[in-house]
């Protein structure tokens, strides 16, 4: 059929025109529908979508405040913040976690331990879109390599973070404490808003006690991000308030000396400035590298530390509870004088042992041959046990308990030393409650030489010694010296609550101090070797505490056991006698005798503090050091 012929072209045209009208109507309706849809979205629901759009692009990010710095009393930096670059992953934005991790492993050095820690943290509850660190402390090469591959790795970011750094890590590990990652329990406790950007929190020591001050206040910034969460620009910012800088009572030089003096032995030294209660040195040896703990210690390193026989993680100065031995005698002497159990002239015959009654068991003096006739002065200087057995029995446990508790035994008397233990000051009630036994006179005999149930920490011994140095005036031990800026110390340092120990005859303080000076300077003083040739007078008391038994789980090693069975060597003392600048407690575990081992340590500390770096002359000392540095 040829085109156009025999066809009713006019009818076909009319038909087409009708259909076109239908189609036109259809088109108008449909386009009208689209326009209506646009009207609905753009005019009617505009507000809703504007909010959605802003929510999309604007994110509120928290800006963690820089943590306050910590200085020693001479403004030597003890804790600072160092920028550390780490690679983090935001799981919500990572395309394939396993693939991303293996890809990262090809770019960076990621250890199995890093991965293990990462997976562990992946399981833990966390804020949505919070990044999880994979590896810390990237070096420049790694950062460069990562930058090249960054676009292939959505959800992977390099973050600069200020991380705590302790330049004198081991020296300050036990006094300063350290920060670490916020754990689950802490997460419950902290203010989620203020800690929104913070990853670290004070775990121990000063870092823990003054957490609130050191942390500061979180800041915020509104940032524009793209769909992958990458920050494009900051829209507005409210700066965080940095944490307060703290100045501690510690003197790093003395602290260092204390560590050196204890050397490789296990032990603790606490030095207190009697006038202020300021803790000048707080050493527990061995220490450990706190920096390892900040970003998370490796399992291997931690095992090494925690399983070490020397217990480097154990803070002996605050938590080591030792029988004080003879170092308790000055406090007992005060008690005996004030309670009337003895007087300055009271003299006894020491045959080398003490018997409660004629048929009773004999309590031996450390000197088997006995000291002969001794008064209180001799008893202190020579550390006569029998004299103290006798006055202990005379006083009885109640009197001893009452006086000793006023020296701060049996409690944590410190103001801001977190984690300090209270030792054990036994009493009748305590024994009945804990042992279901009455207090026997023999218990009093033991207590008279600081043995038996009595336990004290080095910090407590130093505190009690300060009280004697102060002749009864209480200054609770404290670490904080000043808060840099306008905040007064009093606002954050807790109040001391101890009544001064007033004696019926205040001159008894001088007398007991004299007896302690006799220990150092007397012809028969047990520490006369350590007091020799001193340009100042000092007071002290040696002590030796028996180590009764080995812990059950300790392995048998003849050499080792012999060493570990040896007595603990103790010493308490202060100097100068008339104007005390420093009071110390020294304990050297298994060190043998207090006079031979602990007293020389104390003497060196006295020398260091009073001669080498005298308090009033600090500027000059610092100046000298700087000059040396310039040369």
């Amino acid at each position, binding site marked *: 059929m040829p085109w156009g012929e025999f066809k009713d072209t006019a009818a*076909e045209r009319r038909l087409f*025109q009708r259909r076109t009208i239908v189609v036109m109507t259809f088109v108008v309706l449909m*386009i009208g529908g*689209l*326009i209506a849809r646009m009207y609905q979205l*753009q005019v009617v629901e505009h507000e809703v979508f504007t909010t*959605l*759009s802003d929510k999309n*692009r604007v994110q509120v990010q928290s800006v963690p405040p820089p943590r306050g710095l910590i200085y020693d009393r001479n403004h030597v930096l003890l804790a600072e913040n160092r920028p550390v670059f780490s690679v983090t992953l935001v799981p919500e934005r990572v395309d394939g976690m396993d693939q991303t991790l293996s890809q990262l492993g090809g770019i960076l050095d990621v250890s199995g331990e890093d991965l293990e820690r990462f997976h562990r943290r992946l399981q833990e509850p966390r804020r949505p879109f919070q990044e999880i660190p994979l590896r810390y402390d990237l070096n420049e090469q790694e950062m460069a390599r990562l930058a090249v591959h960054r676009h292939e790795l959505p959800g992977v970011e390099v973050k600069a973070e200020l991380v705590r750094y302790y330049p004198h890590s081991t020296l300050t590990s036990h006094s300063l404490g350290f920060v670490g990652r916020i754990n689950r329990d802490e997460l419950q406790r902290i203010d989620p808003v203020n800690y929104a950007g913070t990853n670290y929190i004070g775990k121990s020591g000063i870092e823990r006690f003054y957490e609130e001050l050191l942390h500061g206040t979180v800041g915020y910034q509104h940032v524009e*991000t793209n769909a992958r969460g990458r920050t494009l620009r900051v829209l507005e910012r409210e700066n965080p308030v940095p944490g307060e800088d703290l100045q501690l009572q510690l003197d790093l030089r003395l602290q260092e000396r204390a560590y050196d003096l204890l050397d490789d032995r296990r032990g603790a030294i606490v030095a207190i400035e009697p006038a202020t209660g300021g803790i000048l040195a707080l050493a527990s040896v061995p220490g450990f590298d706190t920096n390892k703990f900040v970003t998370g210690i490796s399992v291997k390193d931690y095992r090494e530390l925690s399983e070490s026989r020397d217990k480097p993680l154990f803070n002996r100065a605050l938590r080591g509870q030792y029988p004080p031995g003879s170092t308790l005698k000055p406090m007992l002497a005060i008690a005996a004088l004030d309670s009337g159990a003895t007087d300055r002239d009271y003299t006894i015959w020491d045959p080398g042992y003490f018997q409660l009654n004629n048929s009773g068991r004999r309590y031996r003096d450390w000197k088997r041959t006995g000291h002969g006739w001794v008064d209180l002065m001799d008893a202190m200087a020579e550390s006569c046990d029998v004299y103290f057995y006798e006055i202990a029995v005379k006083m009885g446990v109640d009197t001893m308990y009452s006086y000793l508790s006023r020296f701060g035994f049996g409690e944590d008397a410190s103001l801001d030393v977190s984690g300090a233990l209270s030792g054990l000051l036994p009493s009748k009630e305590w024994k009945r409650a804990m042992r279901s036994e009455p207090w026997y006179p023999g218990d009093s005999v033991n207590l008279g030489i600081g043995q038996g149930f009595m336990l004290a920490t080095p910090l407590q011994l130093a505190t009690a010694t300060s009280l004697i140095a102060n002749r009864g005036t209480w200054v609770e031990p404290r670490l904080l010296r000043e808060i840099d800026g306008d905040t007064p110390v009093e606002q954050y340092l807790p109040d001391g609550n101890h009544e001064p120990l007033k004696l019926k005859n205040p001159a008894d303080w001088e007398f007991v101090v004299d007896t302690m000076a006799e220990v150092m300077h007397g012809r028969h003083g047990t520490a006369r070797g350590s007091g020799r040739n001193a340009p100042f007078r000092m007071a002290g008391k040696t002590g030796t505490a028996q180590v009764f038994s080995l812990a059950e789980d300790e392995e048998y090693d003849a050499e080792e056991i012999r060493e570990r069975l040896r007595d603990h060597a103790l010493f308490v003392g202060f100097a100068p006698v008339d104007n005390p600048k420093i009071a110390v407690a020294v304990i050297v575990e298994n060190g043998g005798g207090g006079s031979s081992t602990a007293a020389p340590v104390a003497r060196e500390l006295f020398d260091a503090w009073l001669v080498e770096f005298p308090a009033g002359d600090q500027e000059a000392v610092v100046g000298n050091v700087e000059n040396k540095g310039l040369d």
Partner: protein
Amino acid sequence: MALNEFIASSAANPLGRPRGIWSTLHLDPILLFLLLALVSGGLFVLYSGADRNVEVVKAQGIRLGVAFVVMLVFAQLDPSVFRRWAPWLYGAGIIALLAVLVVGVGAKGAQRWLALPGLPRFQPSELMKLVVPMMAAWYLSRHYLPPRLRHVAVGLAIVLVPMMMIIKQPDLGTSLLVGMAGLFVVFFAGISWKLITAFIALVSVSAPMMWFFVMRDYQKQRVLTLLDPQSDPLGAGWNIIQSKTAIGSGGFDGKGWLQGTQSHLEFLPESHTDFIVAVLAEEFGFIGMLVLMTVYFLIILRCLYIAVTAQDSFSRLLAGALTMTFFIYIFVNVGMVSGLLPVVGVPLPLISYGGTSSVTLMAAFGVLMSIHTHRRMIGA
């Protein structure tokens, strides 16, 4: 020869009617102006949608230039050429589609391209957008209109065979456009309303069958997502949520050119291809959308005028079907981006980045111009 003389001599056609430069070039000035306006505006939106990537705009400009040349070439051909070639092109198209299914190359899990040695890679399904309506128009215009049932059945078969082959690739968007182009031919030919009703009923019945036997999982997912975008906000629903947010946040007068936060901050996927209308809506607001819709509407209006004034059934049917294909592009794309329709890969005509659809569309406009500018000679 001076230009004036050239124009004057060209104007003197054998019938003695004056012929302007437009007739000589076989271009329709109204349609050309509208297309140029659309395309140049589109390049501005593209610059923003591609995040100020000049290379993208340049590439698109070159493609559009090629597309205009293709339009010009098609406009020169007499409509009878299309008619005569229709069966051959259709046959070749079916073979090419078969070849695609057997040896085609593809991307993203779909086989769409045919890479013949010595020829540039091409997509036979794209060609079918033109060829199927041509073939349907060729077949139906050979018989008396309105067509009889038998002719309708053959007409539908002409449409459905390539459509099913394209669905198989799978390419839902293109098969939809090809199918619609063919069905509009049948509609314009005058298929009875009774049959239309029956046909709609048939489709409604077969839709569930399609769901279970034909549609791929991802296609089903798109439909499900449309019904409830919030069900998968980070996966399949993301595009729709983000594009609706882009459109809605644009408001009445928009955020301003290059100021669209949704698109520039990478929230909006494919912001320079299928979802470009969201960029326009975000940056130029409701006003911008009204302008766009008006331009599109005017183009459709002009094209339908061309169809109505065409001088034979084949031209009318072809012109009407091509116009409606163009409209379907617009409706599906805007409907999809604004969350009225499922997400199918249909670009916004002449604005979305991409060469193939622009070339096909401009070829279609070339056919329309040819129909319009050759009518007097045919009528003679």
